[in-house]
């Protein structure tokens, strides 16, 4: 189990209907590639976030497969068009089976 894993998300609080908003996400995670060896020459087992998804009111916004070459603390920035008031749900899937989630409300006025 990776230590100190903490998701962070930034979504604007409100938007106008059909506006393109920018979402930034970052999760602190070591993203151990499985290629490195420790001081005794033993391979350090791979431990990465392997999938990241974002949904809006249940509809998929983005679904990403992460590979071992992605560096520590993976950061995603992407745009989404919001048609209505609702909730963004963010999910990160860890190699060790852990699932980290966060969610943000947005109001469309």
């Amino acid at each position, binding site marked *: 189990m990776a230590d*100190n894993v*903490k998701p*962070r998300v*930034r979504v604007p609080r409100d938007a106008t209907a059909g506006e393109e908003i920018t979402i*930034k996400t*970052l999760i*602190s995670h070591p993203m151990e590639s499985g290629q490195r060896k420790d001081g005794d020459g033993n391979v350090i087992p791979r431990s990465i976030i392997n999938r990241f998804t974002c949904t809006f009111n249940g509809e998929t916004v983005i679904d990403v497969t992460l590979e071992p070459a992605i*560096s*520590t*603390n993976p*950061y995603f920035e992407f745009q989404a068009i919001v048609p209505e008031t609702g909730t963004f749900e963010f999910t990160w899937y860890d190699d060790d089976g852990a699932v980290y989630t966060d969610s943000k409300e947005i109001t469309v006025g």
Partner: protein
Amino acid sequence: MKTVFKGGVTAVALFAAYAVQADQEANLVINEDIEITVRADAPEHLENLSTIYSGWVFRSSETQALQMDDFENPGMIFVDDAIEAWNTVEGSEGESCASCHGAPEELAGVRAVYPKWNDEAEEVRTIAMQVNDCRTSQMGAEEWKYDGGDMINMEALIASVSRGMTVNVATDGPAQSMWEKGRDIYYTRFGQLDLSCANCHEDNYDNNIRADHLSQGQINGFPTYRLKNAKLNGVHSRFRGCIRDTRAETYGVGTEEFIALELYVASRGNGLSVEGPSVRN
């Protein structure tokens, strides 16, 4: 045909201007709120420089951008860890940092004046020494390793609440002898390469040392998140790296020599803003 040619020239000129401006003429505002002084008149004691520059101006525009928003600054992840440590009770006295100091913001201004003479202990103290003194004498907890992860994170938290404040380290009074010792080290050539700090950071800043764009070696941005090792780096570890690169035997982290050097180098940045945790390559 002629128009196309002209267009090409303009594009090249624009690109060149952009590259220069983005790097060295840019101004640093963090979170569209905290204004950082990245260039200032050199303090009076500095005879060989007229203007002092934060290391931020020597970095590429991409690296610069990382520091302009706390969400994108990877150093802030470690600040979050330190906030947890700040509120954690440790040691025999049942105290945390918060029990005495309240919110971390109460320490705003501290980073700007350290290293600083401590009357009771009759020594110049860095923030790390002060934190460890708190831990042992107030909390009854074990010392943190000087420049270890816990300590650097805490230093980053303490620096972060002082961002934008002007560095103003005292060089006179009881600290003067340590300050002079630091100055002597700064101008002493070390190692097989026979280099002093000044050879690179005073005589040759803004030049390239192989692929690296030399800064003035200011420490107002410490602790620094370095892209090359993906973690926060302390001042003394940086000093060690520099001296090692001259192929010298270095002083140890937390030694009197490095405390003196930190005091002196910090005073060379009097007039710049506290920036830590900064982002560098």
